[in-house]
C-alpha cells in the first residue's frame, strides 16, 4: 500500500497550507473594513521592532561626500548620516546604534516600502507623487538644494542654451532626469541624455568626455566634483533649474514612527535657534527658560508623547550637535565642499529653516 502511504503523507501538508491560507485571508481583510473605507490605523509599530532589534536601519547613498560617504577608514560621514545618528541617539542614547545600508536611487523606495530600512536619509527630493503614490512620508527638509549643470571649463558652454545638441550625463530614477527634460522642453533646446543607474558610472562617463555636461543637485555636483580626476577643470553653470528640498522619509502607515523622525529633525533646528550645542548642552539643563526646559525634557513630557524619552532632544544634541554643527562638520567652510549656508540658514537669519514650537 505505498500509494496510501503517499496520501497520508500529503494530507497533513495540504491541510496545513489550506488552513494557513485561511488565516492569511482573514488578516488580509481585517485592516480595512469591507467597502471603500480607507486603511485603518496601521497595527504595526516600527519603533517597537527597532527597539527589539536594538539598532536603527538607515538607508543612505554612501556615494556623495558631505551627504553620505564611506571614508577610507570605513566610517560613514555626511549630513544624511548624521540624521541617522541623531535618530539613533534619540532612540537609544547611542548614535552608533545604526546599521547603514547603501541604496542606489532605484532601490531606495522599495527598501523603505518593504521595511528593509526604517528610515531613508539619502538626499531624496520631496515631491508630491512620492508623498502620495509611492507611499512615503517625508520628515522636514534637512537641505534645500537646486539642480544645476556642470561642464568643462574649456568647453565654451556658458549657459543652458549652449548645450543645444550636446550630450548630458544624468542619473536615472531621479527628479533630476525629469527636471532636465522639463527645462529643455520649456526652452526648446534639443539635447542627448546619456542616462546611467549608478552614480559612479555617471560621473566616470562624464570624466571620460562622453558627455559635454552632467546634471545633478548643485550640492551633489560640488561634492562629487571634488573627487573627479581634475576637479579644477570643471565649472558649475550659474543657472539653477529646479528646487530640490532634500528630506528623510519613512514608509506611510505608521504615523507614530513618522512623528518621531520628524521631531528629531526639528530638534536639530530648534537647538540651533536656542543656541544649544553639543558643548553647552549640560549648562542649559539648569536653565530657567520654560521653552528650553520643555525642549530638553527637564519639564513636561513632550518626548513621551512621541513614544520617546522626555530628554530625547538633549540626547541628540549631546551626541550629534545642533543643525549648525552638523552642517559645518559636513559641508561648511572647513570641509572640502565649502558650501555657503545660503537658504539652509535659520529663518531668523534669512534662511528657510524653521521649527514648530516644542510645546
Amino acid at each position, binding site marked *: 500500500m505505498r*500509494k496510501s502511504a503517499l496520501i497520508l503523507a500529503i494530507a497533513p501538508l495540504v491541510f496545513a497550507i489550506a488552513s494557513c491560507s485561511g488565516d492569511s485571508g482573514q488578516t488580509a481583510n481585517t485592516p480595512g473594513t469591507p467597502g471603500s473605507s480607507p486603511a485603518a490605523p496601521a497595527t504595526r509599530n516600527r519603533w517597537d521592532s527597532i527597539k527589539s532589534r536594538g539598532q536603527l536601519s538607515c538607508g543612505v547613498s554612501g556615494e556623495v561626500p558631505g551627504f553620505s560617504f564611506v571614508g577610507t577608514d570605513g566610517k560613514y560621514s555626511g549630513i544624511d548620516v548624521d540624521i541617522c545618528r541623531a535618530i539613533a541617539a534619540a532612540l537609544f542614547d547611542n548614535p552608533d546604534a545604526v546599521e547603514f545600508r547603501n541604496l542606489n536611487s532605484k532601490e531606495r523606495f522599495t527598501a523603505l516600502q518593504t521595511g528593509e530600512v526604517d528610515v531613508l536619509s539619502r538626499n531624496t527630493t520631496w515631491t508630491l507623487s512620492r508623498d502620495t503614490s509611492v507611499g512615503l512620508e517625508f520628515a522636514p527638509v534637512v537641505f534645500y538644494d537646486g539642480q544645476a549643470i556642470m561642464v568643462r571649463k574649456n568647453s565654451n558652454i556658458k549657459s543652458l542654451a549652449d548645450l543645444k545638441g550636446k550630450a548630458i550625463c544624468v542619473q536615472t530614477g531621479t527628479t533630476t532626469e525629469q527636471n532636465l527634460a522639463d527645462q529643455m522642453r520649456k526652452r526648446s533646446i534639443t539635447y542627448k541624455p546619456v542616462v546611467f*543607474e549608478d552614480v559612479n558610472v555617471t560621473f566616470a562617463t562624464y570624466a571620460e568626455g562622453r558627455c559635454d555636461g552632467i546634471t545633478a543637485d548643485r550640492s551633489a555636483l560640488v561634492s562629487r566634483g571634488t573627487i573627479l580626476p581634475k576637479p579644477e577643470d570643471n565649472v558649475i553653470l550659474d543657472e539653477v533649474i529646479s528646487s530640490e528640498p532634500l528630506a528623510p522619509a519613512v514608509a506611510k502607515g505608521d504615523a507614530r514612527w513618522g512623528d518621531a523622525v520628524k521631531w528629531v529633525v526639528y530638534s536639530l533646528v530648534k537647538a540651533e535657534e536656542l543656541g544649544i550645542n553639543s558643548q553647552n548642552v549640560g549648562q542649559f539643563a539648569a536653565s530657567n527658560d520654560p521653552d528650553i526646559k520643555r525642549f530638553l525634557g527637564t519639564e513636561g513630557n513632550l518626548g513621551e508623547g512621541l513614544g520617546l524619552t522626555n530628554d530625547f532632544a538633549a540626547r541628540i544634541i549631546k551626541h550629534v550637535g545642533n543643525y549648525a554643527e552638523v552642517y559645518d562638520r559636513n559641508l561648511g567652510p572647513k570641509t572640502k565642499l565649502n558650501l555657503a549656508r545660503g537658504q539652509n540658514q535659520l529663518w531668523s537669519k534669512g534662511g528657510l529653516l524653521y521649527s514648530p514650537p516644542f510645546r
Partner: protein
Amino acid sequence: MTNSKPLIWRDVRFWRIVLQLVAVFLAVIVVVILWGNLQRNLQQLGIQFGFDFLKQQASFDIGEALINYKPTDTYSHALWVGLINSLRVAVAGIFLTTIVGVGAGIARLSDNWLVRNITMVYVEIFRNTPLLLQLLFWYFAVFLSFPKTENKISLWGFIGVSQNGLELPWFTLSPEFSALLLGLTFYTGAFIAEIVRGGIQSVPKGQWEAARSLGLKPGLAMRLVIFPQALRVIIPPLTSQYLNLTKNTSLAIAIGYPDIYFVASTTFNQTGKAVEVILLIMLTYLTLSLTISVVMNLFNRSVQIKER
C-alpha cells in the same frame, strides 16, 4: 473474471490525475497567499495596485529612440521605445554572434596552429569572464577611449570611430549601443563556438572520409556533408544561447543604453509601481523567449533527419 476491475487507488491513471490536481491546488494556494500578502502590504502603505500609470506622462527623455518619442508621451509609449531598442540589439546581436560563433567554432578545428590557438584564447577568455565586466570594458576601455568626434579615426574611408560611437555613412551607432552589441556578440559567440565545435566533432569520422573519397575539398566537405549533419546537434543548444543573448540585453542598464529593462526601471522608480512594472518586464521577456524558442524549434524540425 468478475473482479477484473482494480480498486481505484490501485489504478495508476487515478493517481496521475490526483497528483496533477494536488499540484494545481498547491500552486493556486501559493499564489493566493502571495497575492493576499501583497494586497495587505500595499494597503498599509496606501498604494493602489493597477496599470493606470501607463497612461500618465513619462516626463523623462530617452537618449536613443527608433520611433518618435517626446517626454510628453506616456509611460507605455516610453516602454515601447525601450522594447524596440532591446529588439534592435537582440536581432543584430543574434545575427552577428552566429557569424562570430560559427566562424570561431570551425576555426578551433583548423589545421592551422595559429588560427586554432588564437580562437582557443578568444573562447577561453570570453567564456570565463563575467559579461557585465566585458560590457564595462567595451564601454570604458574601448569606446570612451577613442578620440573625440573632431579627430575621429577613419576606417577604410567610410567608417568613423570616435567617442561618439561608430559613424557609418548612413547612420551613427552610439557608443552605448556599440559597446552592448559587441559585448553581447563576442561573449555569446564564445559559447556558440564551443557548441559548433562539439557539433562538428559529433559527426562520425567516416563522413569526412566518405566526403574526401568522393573528391570533395575540405571546405566543400565541411559545407556540404559535415556541417548539415552537425546542425542537428548544434541547433538545440544554439537556441539557448540566443535566449541568453536576448535576456542579457537587460545588462544595458550598466552602460546607459535605454533598453526595455532600463526604461521600465526608470518608470517604476518614478511611479513607485514596482510590482506592476516587474510583472510587465517578466511578461515581455517571457514573450521574447518563447517566440525565439518557437522559431528555433521550427528550424530545428527542418534540419532533423526525416525518417521515411
